[in-house]
């Protein structure tokens, strides 16, 4: 497990792992299992239906535990579709750290497609982190297409943080969250594209239950000749509150399209959206230069802060 330097660097980048994880984990490497550990409260097992992927079952009342399920691809030409299902019991408070890193030094595409389905029990809190990163000098593309579906029962919440760090040539992200009574979904999306990379993010938060709340905070930086499309939608079906906020910094010859949408199917639904696309303001650069930063350092500081 974590045999090579490439493995270790990828795992640190996508899951902040610097050694064997503490608690439950499953490390998927080049379509195989590179290590797995269940705990008393978190059970990880192969899927019963024979599809590629795992079932993660977290017992009622599990509090303060973390589950790591990173995926790394280090060989060119690997293309996989993975199904991971999470069954989180009632009254839990857990962290789930996913993420995918691709190291591609070959000329064939490496591709990871995944469908994560979460069933979050009553009054449970889940913090879910997913980082995507690509590297390698080959001509082969680094492709990731993650789908996430979340069902939140009464009083449940998910804080979902998705980050595309660098080096992903093509991504199509689909996220759907259905909120029950008094449930809350907070999605923070960070995305950076460069060169000729393409990124598309579709999101739908359905506020079904009374008192449900949804918040989407999307920040992206598009550099080079890259293209980004965002389509976050918030649907209010009852007394609920939803807020969608998309901010993008556009640079060089990039293209960004942002289409936030809100739909109210109830007079009690309160929904707000805002979207902004713009370059780095000249005054911001000048201000940081007056603090002794070079123009390059100032730009890096602004981008790092924006995507932090």
């Amino acid at each position, binding site marked *: 497990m974590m045999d090579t330097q490439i493995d270790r660097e990828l795992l640190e980048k996508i899951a902040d792992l610097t050694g064997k994880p503490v608690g439950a984990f499953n490390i998927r490497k080049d379509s195989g299992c590179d290590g797995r550990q269940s705990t008393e409260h978190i059970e990880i097992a192969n899927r019963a239906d024979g599809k590629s992927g795992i079932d993660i079952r977290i017992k009622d009342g599990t509090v303060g535990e973390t589950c790591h399920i990173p995926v790394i691809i280090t060989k060119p030409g690997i293309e996989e579709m993975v199904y991971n299902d999470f069954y989180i019991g009632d009254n839990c408070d857990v962290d789930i750290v996913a993420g995918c890193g691709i190291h591609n030094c070959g000329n064939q595409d490496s591709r990871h497609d995944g469908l994560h389905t979460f069933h979050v029990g009553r009054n449970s809190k889940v913090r879910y982190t997913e980082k995507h990163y690509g590297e390698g000098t080959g001509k082969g593309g680094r492709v990731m297409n993650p789908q996430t579906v979340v069902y939140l029962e009464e009083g449940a919440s998910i804080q979902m943080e998705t980050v595309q760090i660098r080096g992903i040539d093509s991504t199509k992200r689909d996220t759907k969250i259905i909120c029950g009574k008094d449930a809350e979904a907070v999605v923070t999306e960070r995305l950076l594209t460069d060169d000729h990379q393409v990124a598309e993010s579709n999101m739908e938060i359905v506020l079904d239950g009374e008192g449900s709340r949804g918040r989407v905070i999307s920040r992206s930086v598009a550099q080079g000749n890259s293209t980004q499309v965002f389509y976050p939608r918030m649907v209010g079906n009852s007394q609920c509150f939803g807020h969608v906020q998309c901010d993008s910094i556009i640079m060089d010859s990039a293209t960004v399209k942002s289409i936030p949408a809100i739909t109210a199917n109830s007079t009690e639904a309160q929904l707000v959206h805002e979207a902004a696309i713009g370059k780095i303001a000249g005054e911001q650069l*000048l*201000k940081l230069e007056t603090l002794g930063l070079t123009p390059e350092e100032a730009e890096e500081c602004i981008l790092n802060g924006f995507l932090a």
Partner: protein
Amino acid sequence: MLELKHISYTVQEGDDKLGILNDISLTIDDHKLVVFTGPNGGGKTTLAKVIMGLVTPTSGQILWNGQDITPLSITERAKLGISYGFQQPPRFKGLTVRDLLTLASGNEKLSKDQCCQYLTKVGLCANDYLDREVDVSLSGGEVKRIEIASILARNSQFMIFDEPEAGIDLWSFTRLTETFEQIHAKGSATMVIISHQERIISLADEVIVVGDGAIRHRGSAQEILPQILADTLGSCPVLKKEANA
């Protein structure tokens, strides 16, 4: 010591050249508190920006401690000990107040206590502000005070403040003038403050009235304040009548 020699700045307006600064020469000695004042559009901010390198003069020379800094960039001037508090500071999505103060101080390990000291001097509580982003969630007055705190954190030899009082409530203004007085009393920095406030003007070793791109008057606060009043009334008979009533 800062010396400005024959500084001019002109811009093209149609076929004509418009003089924003016209042959200004000026020397500011170390540890002095100098106030630039004068009518709106008179050239005060442009003159201050010329010192920081935010505006490149069309002609003239700027010497800082004997070194010709005219060709130097903003960054190079900042590293030589010149700092500038903007009249309308920019906001940054994602950068917190702590980030900004840390950047300004140049000390990556700037402690909360140190941040607290800078923020207290502008009437802000560190507990309420340190982790907040310097974005649109802050009011204009709050951003302005954080801007001034960042100049205090920078702790440079030459500090420029462009209308520090603008947008600041009365209580914070009092605290701010005390801070300027303290810096001045310690003799740790030279300060140029662009201001219209009598209270700040009265702190100055020297007041320089800038108008129509030139220095109209310079002298002590006692000498200059009556002249400012006279200039403000100008030739308007209504204002003069009201003033004399």
